[in-house]
């Protein structure tokens, strides 16, 4: 029996029990807090990465599917105003939204302001659709002009045409 008494632990008082509970709660709370922070942080990071990846993949997919051919460019005067008339065909499977036309009208390749004026919202071509783009353009007959159509996905469709 003496041996048994040596082994019997002294009964804890009330403070000791409370501390044990508080300690347990603190540890649990700390674990929850840290875990929550980690989860939120990683979730946010993953979400950001996913959105970024989604955007990049969507853009790349759009670019991969955009097909447009400029089959004729006609420099002529309409109503006394020299114009640039571009004929293009969307032969891809996606909508193409043309937002800018670049030309070397001024000597360097730059956006054509008259296009933005004539088409402030750009131009949208459905798959299989042919389109005629008419914009004021001062040209010198016999001169070769660079015409570049840019879509909102960043695709570029270009060529050189003689006025």
């Amino acid at each position, binding site marked *: 029996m003496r041996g048994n008494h040596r082994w019997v632990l002294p009964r804890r008082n009330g403070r000791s029990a409370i501390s044990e509970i508080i300690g*347990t709660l603190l540890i649990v709370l700390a674990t929850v807090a840290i875990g929550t922070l980690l989860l939120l942080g990683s979730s946010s990071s993953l979400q950001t990465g996913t959105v970024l990846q989604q955007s990049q993949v969507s853009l790349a997919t759009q670019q*991969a599917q955009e097909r447009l051919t400029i089959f004729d460019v006609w420099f002529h005067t309409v109503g006394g105003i020299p114009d640039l008339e571009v004929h293009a065909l969307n032969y891809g499977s996606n909508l193409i939204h043309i937002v800018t036309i670049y030309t070397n009208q001024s000597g360097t390749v730059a956006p054509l302001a008259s296009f933005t004026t004539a088409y402030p919202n750009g131009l949208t071509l459905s798959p299989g659709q042919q389109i005629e783009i008419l914009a004021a353009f001062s040209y010198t007959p016999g001169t070769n002009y660079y015409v570049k159509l840019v879509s909102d996905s960043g695709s570029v469709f270009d060529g050189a045409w003689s006025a």
Partner: protein
Amino acid sequence: MIELRVHRGESWRGLFPPERPRRPFEAKHRRRAVSSVIGGLFVLAIMVAGISTILYITTLQTGMIQAENHAAVADTQKNQEKLSISQVFYGGTQSYTPTQAYVAGSTCNNLCGVNMTTASSGRFGGTIMNQNNTLYHAYAPFNFTSPMNNPTLQALSNSNFTSNTNGWTFASTSSVSGDFSSSNGNPSPGSGVGSMELYFTCVGTATFKGNATTRFYINPSSGGVGPIANSQFSWAEYVPVLNSRSISSATLTVYLVDENTAPSFTTYTLTQLSLAGPDASWKYRTAISSLQSGGTIASKLVHTGYYDIVINLNVQTTSKCYSQYFFYFDDIGLNYLGNSYFLYQTDWAYTFVLAQASSVVTQLSFSLTTAYNQTSPTQSVYLYDWLNKKYLLFSNVTTSVGADVISVNVNFNSTLAPQNLINGANELVLRVQSVAYATSSTVHRIETDVQSSAYLSLTVWYSSSNAVTFTLQNQGPVQMEVVSLVIIDAGGHHYFNSTTTPAFDVVLYPGKVVVTQIQYSWVPGLSTFYFVTARGNVFVD
């Protein structure tokens, strides 16, 4: 023993009362366990989120790769497109097809099929339509009225003996100044006015003699057509200018010469008559079966070999003669009846009335589908030459039982102008003659079965300043659609597609050839044509 049980911890509940306080290390372990579970859950959640994200991104990438693959396939097909552009000319084409066709047994109206049978009267049917009678008198010998059960009438290859190598030859046998035209010799059957022309220039009182001769081969043996049972001679003459004051006599004599009796060359007079003239129209003399010199023609056709028909013209002129005299002969033919064979023949014509005048027609193209129920009939396709008043042979083929398609392209040149084939009323006559032989008389017929308008068509190519025509051929392995045409000329750029007027949209299967016409006012000068396909290719001509 007790210590051992305690240390092993196997019997706590049995050794101590329930209210015994727990050991400190036991509570600590419980807190750690709870935290570990919670932490593990968080880690698990993070892992799930991460893996889900990876899976989602992988799905996005897969979609992109699929889109790229799809685009790559489209690009490959685009690169495979190959378009041939040819025969671009300013003008157009127009197709004509009969509005009514005839099948044997129904009413014949313009375009006729002919169903010929061995009727008890022995009369072969023929079809005469839409043409003057001169065209068909070559076949007058077929119109027997007496019963002919067997044998039936059989012709040489045609009534003008064009099958021999020489055709008609002409010769002058007098010293009278003049000449003989052989330009229309060797004429086609039923060739009408001018098929054979003899003329001379009168210089006063003299005798003019001229011969026109042809040669034919006949085999009346059992290995050939068999003994000749009957033979008939027919011909027509037309002497537009003749005056008794200027010509005291004009005698025409037709001879049959048997070359197999050389060197004597036994000669029989088929017929002889005085040309009274002037004639207002053709005079036909048909179904002459007896020789003027006695006997029948058939009785003289007994040798296997060559015979000749000689037309001799003998004219006595006076001092008051005119400058030139013309003598025309046509439809000279000798038909005969064999014992071994039966002849079946169809002959029909169709007159196209064109919207285009001959002055703008540049090319003609016929497509004719016929069907015969006789073995190996010989089919000849003729177009009528209005200027020379004769039929021109454009196709001569041996067809088969069942449908055969004959294509005839007529390209005009220095010797054949559109005016030859198209008259002032824009009429063009197509004639089809078919001949077949059979060795028995039971249920034989030759039938030109033109079942629908699709069986006969004419395409006229004409020049015009208001149209452009070109031929497109898909020479690639993939189907293509030409969706846009741009014509660039001195007048500017002209755009045609499915939304314009006129519309332009051509679908071409691999190998397909399409002749396309666009109404477009032509501007003199250089023109460029852009053909844009649905896959984005631009072909330039």
